[in-house]
C-alpha cells in the first residue's frame, strides 16, 4: 500500500473522530470530551499529512508556528465575555484559508497552464467566493460584536440593488475566468475583491445582537469553503469535514433562529431593530419611580427571597463578581437567592451561564426560565440587572410588538421589581418596556457594577 493511500485511510479515522466529536459536543455531559476527540481527529490528519512526499517543510512549519502562536495566545487571553467575537475571528480565518488555498492552487498549477478542466475552474471560483465572503463577513461580525464598528443594523436605500450588482459582477467575472482559466488570473483577482466586498455587504445590515446567528451561518459557509477547496486539490478529508461542518452549521443556524422565535430571512434581511421607534405600540405609560441605593438596600434587607435576572447589561458592566458577592451577603442575611436565566439573555447563547460560572456562582442557583416563572408570584424581589427584552411583558401581551411571541422571564409578577440600568434607553430590540413603569417597579439608575458595589457597601456599612 502506497504512502499516499495510508495517509488517505488515516483521514477516514479523522472523519470518524470528527463525527463522534460533534455528536458529543451537542450534549452538555460529554461536550468537553467531544471537543478533545475532535481535536484528536485533527491531530491525526495533520500529523499524517506531514508525511507526504515533497513538502516544503520550512514554510509549512513557519506558517504553523506563527498561526499556532497567534491562535493560542488569542484563545488564552480573550475574556470570557468576548468569546463570540473570538469565534467570529477564528471562523473568518478558516474561510480566509480556503480562499488562499484555492488562490495558491491556481497560482502554482493552473496559471498560464494549457487548460484547467471546467470542473476545476468552478470549484476554484466557489472556494474563493465562499471563502472570501466568510472571511470579510466574519471580520465585520467581529467588529460589530466587539463594538469596534457600530453594532446597529445598517440599512441603506438600494441595498438589494447593490447586492444584486455585486453578485452579477461576480457572475460575469466567473464566466470570463472559466472561458480560459489559464489566462484568467486578472478575473480571478477581481473575483477575490468582489468576494470580500460581498461579505461586508452581507453582514453590515445585520444588527450586532443577531451576530450569533450570522456566525453560525458563516461557520456553515466556512465548512462549505473547505469542502470546495477540497475539490480543488482533490482532498477527501476536506470534503468530508467541510460538508459535515457545512450541514451542522446550517442546522445550528436554524435551531438558533427557532430559539429566538425568528426566521432566518428575518434575521438576514430585516435589519431587526433598525426601525425601532415605531415598534413601541401603546403609549399609556405610568410614572417611573427612581430609587437610591439606600432605598433598594432596605427593600433587599427585608426580603425573604430574591431572584436576580441578569441580561446583556451584566456583561457590559462586567458586574458578575459583584453580583455574586451581593448574593452571598443576602444569603448571610437569611434571604433565598436565585438567578433566573433566560435562554437568549445577553448576546450569545449561554452568555449568562458562562459569566456567572466565571464568578463561581453555584450551579444549583441558576434556574431556567420555565422553572422560575411558575414561582414568580411568591418572589419578594426580582432584581433585573441589565436585562430588558427578556423581561418585557410586551412579548406576552402586545401582538404588534417586534418581540411578540418570545417567552420571557415574568419578573413583573414578583412582589417588588428593581431594575438596574443606566438610562431609559431600550435594549436590543429597540422597544419600550412597560415593566419599568409598573406599580411595583423601582429603577436604580447607573452602571450595574457601580450600583451593586454601592449596595454591597450599604450591606457592609
Amino acid at each position: 500500500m502506497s504512502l499516499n493511500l495510508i495517509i488517505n485511510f488515516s483521514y477516514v479515522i479523522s472523519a470518524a473522530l470528527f463525527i463522534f466529536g460533534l455528536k458529543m459536543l451537542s450534549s452538555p455531559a460529554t461536550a468537553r470530551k467531544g471537543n478533545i476527540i475532535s481535536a484528536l481527529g485533527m491531530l491525526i490528519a495533520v500529523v499524517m499529512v506531514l508525511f507526504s512526499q515533497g513538502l516544503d517543510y520550512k514554510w509549512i512549519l513557519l506558517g504553523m508556528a506563527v498561526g499556532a502562536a497567534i491562535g493560542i495566545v488569542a484563545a488564552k487571553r480573550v475574556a470570557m465575555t468576548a468569546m463570540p467575537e473570538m469565534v467570529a475571528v477564528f471562523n473568518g480565518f478558516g474561510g480566509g484559508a480556503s480562499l488562499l488555498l484555492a488562490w495558491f492552487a491556481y497560482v502554482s498549477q493552473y496559471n498560464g497552464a494549457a487548460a484547467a478542466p471546467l470542473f476545476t475552474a468552478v470549484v476554484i471560483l466557489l472556494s474563493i467566493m465562499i471563502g472570501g465572503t466568510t472571511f470579510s463577513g466574519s471580520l465585520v461580525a467581529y467588529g460589530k460584536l466587539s463594538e469596534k464598528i457600530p453594532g446597529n443594523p445598517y440599512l441603506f436605500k438600494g441595498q438589494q440593488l447593490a447586492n444584486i450588482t455585486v453578485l452579477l459582477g461576480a457572475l460575469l467575472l466567473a464566466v470570463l475566468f472559466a472561458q480560459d482559466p489559464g489566462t484568467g488570473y486578472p478575473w480571478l483577482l477581481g473575483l477575490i475583491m468582489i468576494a470580500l466586498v460581498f461579505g461586508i455587504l452581507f453582514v453590515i445590515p445585520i444588527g450586532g445582537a443577531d451576530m450569533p446567528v450570522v456566525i453560525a451561518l458563516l461557520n456553515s459557509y466556512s465548512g462549505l469553503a473547505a469542502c470546495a477547496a477540497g475539490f480543488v486539490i482533490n482532498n477527501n478529508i476536506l470534503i468530508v469535514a467541510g460538508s459535515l461542518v457545512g450541514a451542522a452549521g446550517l442546522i445550528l443556524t436554524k435551531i438558533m433562529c427557532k430559539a429566538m422565535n425568528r426566521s432566518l430571512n428575518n434575521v438576514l434581511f430585516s435589519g431587526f431593530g433598525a426601525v425601532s421607534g415605531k415598534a413601541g405600540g401603546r403609549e399609556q405609560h405610568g410614572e417611573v419611580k427612581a430609587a437610591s441605593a439606600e432605598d433598594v438596600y432596605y427593600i433587599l434587607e427585608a426580603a425573604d427571597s430574591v431572584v436576580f435576572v441578569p441580561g446583556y447589561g451584566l456583561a457590559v458592566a462586567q458586574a458578575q463578581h459583584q453580583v455574586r458577592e451581593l448574593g452571598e451577603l443576602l444569603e448571610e442575611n437569611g434571604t433565598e437567592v436565585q438567578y433566573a436565566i433566560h435562554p437568549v439573555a445577553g448576546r450569545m447563547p449561554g452568555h449568562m451561564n458562562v459569566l456567572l460560572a466565571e464568578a463561581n456562582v453555584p450551579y444549583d442557583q441558576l434556574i431556567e426560565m420555565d422553572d422560575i416563572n411558575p414561582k414568580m408570584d411568591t418572589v419578594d424581589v426580582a432584581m433585573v440587572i441589565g436585562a430588558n427584552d427578556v423581561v418585557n411583558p410586551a412579548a406576552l401581551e402586545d401582538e404588534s410588538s417586534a418581540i411578540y411571541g418570545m417567552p420571557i422571564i415574568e419578573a413583573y409578577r414578583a412582589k417588588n421589581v428593581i431594575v438596574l440600568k443606566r438610562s431609559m434607553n431600550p435594549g436590543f430590540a429597540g422597544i419600550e418596556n412597560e415593566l419599568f413603569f409598573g406599580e411595583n417597579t423601582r429603577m436604580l439608575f447607573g452602571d450595574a457594577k457601580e450600583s451593586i458595589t454601592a449596595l454591597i457597601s450599604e450591606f457592609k456599612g
Partner: protein
Amino acid sequence: MTAVFLTFVLLLSIFLGFEVISKVPSTLHTPLMSGANAISGITLVGTIAALTTGQSAMGIILGTAAVCMASINVFGGYLVTDRMLSMFKKREKGGK
C-alpha cells in the same frame, strides 16, 4: 466518476450533520459553533499537502499565509472551545 463519489460523500455528510446536531440545548450553541468552526480548520491539512517544494515566490507567500490562517483557526478554535466548556464543567462542581 470521482464527482459521483464526492456527491455521495456530500449527501451522506449532510444527512449525518443533520442527525448529529438536531436538538442541542441553547446553552451549548456557542461552544458547539466554536467546536464546529475548529473542525472547518481542516483546510490546514489541504494547505500542507499543497505546499510542496519548488513554488514561485507568490506561491510561497500564499501557501504560507494559508497555513498560518488555518493554524490560527485550528489551534485557537479548539482551545477557545475547551476554555468555554471547562467553564461549563465548573458550574456543576460549584453546586452544594
